[in-house]
């Protein structure tokens, strides 16, 4: 699979539907004790409609759009993103990755990553560079 994706091409799309179980497990595996991610009543007391998706879980979802889209022949070399809006268990978070630039030799790609919630609002946006491993 040596075809280099073209500029403008959307290479990956991943939909993550975070559940309270997933957010609990992400909290557990990252040893994150912040209650807003796994305690519904605490999250409600802070004014949130549900338990919050971790910023790094938003990022993991967005990066998955890149790794799935490009495949194992490519490796992510840098990532920059901003979380613009919180999301909650029960939402559907669609992450996409689009090629915005390609080096002359086609061995370095720049991608725009974006994650939107179920109502189409942007939760995360950023930039990724990925290098060819061959």
């Amino acid at each position: 699979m040596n075809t280099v994706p073209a500029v403008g091409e959307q290479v990956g799309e991943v939909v993550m539907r975070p559940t309270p179980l997933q957010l609990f497990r992400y909290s557990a595996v990252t040893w994150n004790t912040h209650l807003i991610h796994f305690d519904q009543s605490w999250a409600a007391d802070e004014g949130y409609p549900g338990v919050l998706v971790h910023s790094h879980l938003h990022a993991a979802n967005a990066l998955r759009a890149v790794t799935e889209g490009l495949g194992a022949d490519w490796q992510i070399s840098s990532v920059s993103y901003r979380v613009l809006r919180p999301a909650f268990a029960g939402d559907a978070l669609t992450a996409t990755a689009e090629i915005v630039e390609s080096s002359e030799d086609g061995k370095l790609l720049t991608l725009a990553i974006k994650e939107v919630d179920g109502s189409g609002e942007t939760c995360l946006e950023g930039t990724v560079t990925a290098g060819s491993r061959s």
Partner: protein
Amino acid sequence: MTEIDLHELSPELAKYHEEVQSHVGDRERRHIGIVDHRMIRRYAVAIGDANPLYQDADAAKAAGYPDIIAPPNMLAGVVDWGPGLMEDEINPDGTPGSHSFGGLRVMGAGEEMEILHPLVAGTDVYDDEVIDSVEVKQGRSGVLMFVTTLHEFSDDTGKVLNRNRRTILVRP
């Protein structure tokens, strides 16, 4: 957003600001230890990613890696690599009591990562942490504080694997 007068901060935010400001530039090195297969596999499951590079050593080897590798932001995503604090040292909202988050709301705002080498299972990892900057801004919904921290993850030979600059947003 505009810069604001620090005297306008709430007492909780002022206390946190003072504490963090006094540590800007401090470098703290931690030995994370060996990141094993179980840790990587559990992280991959928690993010819902079934990529065989994260689970199956044969698939990783076929792709040219010495063993399974971690998803790109695993090193960044783990909040605490140590045992964690005893419960009486944790704030009511679950955040570590070592920071004066009491009464403040905290969330991740963004990050810049430079990934020099993927993390391979079995690597002995160190984390050098430096508090980069503290900024207070006036947002649409009130005063916002941004704290940026650099984490440099390296292996036991000193090879840097990953450099992260992460920003958290702290609000009254």
